């Protein structure tokens, strides 16, 4: 397997891991194994979706994000709140209170990601008019989806919308504005995203679609939340918000697709559902679709593991808080998309293939099928792999042995017992 120097937000706390197989079973790219009683993440396969964090009963899987002290590293800081943040508060009617509280927390400026989302929606609408694009266009805002397509669905790479996500666009625009206004250099300004998931943390460290992200740090919504709650009681509302319903709608599933203003769209959320949609798209089972919005988390970004509120409650709150917002406040000044389009294309990462050499891969596949036919097909996970097929695959990849299967082991013990029995019968009897 190729060993890339991957950064991953999703990591394991060795101390807390009990070696159960909850995460192993749930991982959509089969990236986790239990070895020596502890879970291990195969980093080349991990897409940072956070499913393992969600299911781990021992809280051994966690997301790395930046500490609040990251703000001290810069002379001037800009908060980039994700739309999902607006769905975390009870009885909130005014988004301006959150934004004012962020300033009170120490940020010099706030640039709403929802504002950038409206620009991205406009850019998407313009992109959709191009005659040479592959339809349906698949949204690129969820970094876990991009990483999933990159390792599992290479056929669909041409369908991916090659436009930067709102987080990235917000960071770039906000920094440019701040540089012009303050005269500070880019290094002195910190653009800090306040986000819902580990996939976004990874996206800020290792950008897909460009060389380097303009986002300098990511704080988790759940870390910022307790500070905001206190501060929101102390601030008075000021006219800070510059986003409309369309941009804020991106915070939950269906929001992005609705903002494209196309009738023939589909919005799917939850990692199993998006895999099934991607499989169907790959087989061309859907006809006449123009746009496909995919979110790895159930409910969309409000379902990210770094939120506070239940995704479905957050969705209701998000709807509530945007009631009095205008429909949309931001549009592109012209038809030039160059500031929005990716600088680098998405490339297939064949981390799931058995061997780069087809003939060797064929031999490994035969061996894998032979091994699998001898396993019991219970997919119990006791060997540390998610299924019998995955164990057979691990054996041909050289990272496991067949006797990791406890049922195989039982057979061997049985054979051994029979042998002993036979041997005992042949032993001369003691005189009676």
């Amino acid at each position, binding site marked *: 397997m190729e060993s890339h120097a991957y950064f991953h937000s999703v990591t394991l706390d060795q101390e807390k891991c009990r070696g159960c197989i909850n995460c192993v079973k749930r991982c959509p790219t089969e990236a986790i194994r239990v070895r020596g009683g502890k879970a291990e993440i195969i980093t080349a396969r991990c897409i940072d979706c956070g499913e393992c964090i969600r299911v781990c009963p021992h809280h051994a899987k966690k997301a790395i994000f930046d500490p609040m002290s990251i703000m001290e590293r810069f002379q001037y800081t800009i908060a980039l709140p994700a739309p999902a943040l607006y769905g975390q508060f009870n009885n909130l009617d005014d988004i301006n209170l959150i934004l004012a509280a962020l300033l009170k927390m120490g940020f010099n400026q706030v640039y709403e990601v929802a504002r950038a989302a409206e620009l991205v929606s406009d850019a998407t609408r313009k992109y959709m008019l191009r005659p040479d694009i592959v339809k349906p266009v698949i949204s690129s805002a969820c970094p876990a989806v991009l990483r999933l397509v990159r390792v599992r669905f290479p056929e669909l790479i041409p369908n991916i919308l090659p436009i930067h996500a709102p987080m990235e666009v917000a960071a770039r625009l906000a920094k440019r504005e701040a540089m012009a206004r303050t005269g500070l250099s880019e290094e002195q300004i910190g653009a800090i995203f306040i986000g819902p998931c580990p996939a976004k943390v990874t996206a800020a460290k290792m950008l897909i679609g460009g060389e380097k992200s303009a986002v300098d740090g990511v704080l988790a919504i759940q870390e910022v939340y307790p500070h905001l709650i206190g501060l929101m009681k102390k601030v008075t509302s000021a006219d800070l918000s510059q986003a409309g319903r369309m941009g804020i709608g991106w915070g939950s599933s269906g929001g992005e697709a609705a903002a494209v203003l196309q009738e023939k769209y589909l919005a799917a959320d939850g990692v199993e559902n998006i895999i099934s949609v991607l499989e169907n798209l790959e087989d061309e089972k859907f006809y006449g679709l123009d746009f496909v919005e995919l979110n790895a988390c159930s409910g969309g970004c409000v379902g990210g593991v770094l939120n506070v509120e239940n995704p479905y409650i957050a969705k209701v709150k998000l709807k509530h808080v945007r009631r009095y917002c205008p429909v949309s406040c931001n549009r592109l000044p012209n038809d030039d998309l160059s500031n929005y389009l990716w600088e680098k294309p998405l490339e*297939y990462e064949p981390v799931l293939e058995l061997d780069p050499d*087809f003939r060797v891969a064929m*031999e490994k*596949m035969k061996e894998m099928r032979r091994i699998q036919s001898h396993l019991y097909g219970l997919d119990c996970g006791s060997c540390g792999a998610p299924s019998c097929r995955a164990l057979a695959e691990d054996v041909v990849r050289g990272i496991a042995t067949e006797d990791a299967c406890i049922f195989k082991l039982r057979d061997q013990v049985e054979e051994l017992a029979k042998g002993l029995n036979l041997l005992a019968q042949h032993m001369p009897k003691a005189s009676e």
Partner: protein
Amino acid sequence: MSDTIQLNFTVPGDDFTRAGEASSEVKGILKKLGLSPMVVRKVAIAMYEGEINMAIHGGGGEITVEISDQWVQMVLADQGPGIPNVELAMQEGWSTAPDSVRNLGFGAGMGLPNMKKYSDEMSIDSQVGVGTTVTMRVYLNL
């Protein structure tokens, strides 16, 4: 390399929801073999259409997939009613699917034309009252 990988599948004749399982499994195997996305896609679509045909018209049947270092071959055999006029069946939009099937979104008359389009070679051997065997090949172009 001398021999091939052979895969056998049974397609049920009465359950649409299961049609596509075989092509999905083949797709996974081809990806693991590192074949190009284009080849995988061609095989997956051609085979899926074939599976649907077997479920709708053929009353189910058997699929044998063989992978060599030159091609992927799919043989789809059913003991259904057979195709009286193969030429007509090959025309886009020609369909004999009943309304119950069309209501499910199938039966648009694109099955055989799509199989022809996505495979590099296709032959149909059909006898009325006996059954239909479709053989398709997609070349790997390694």
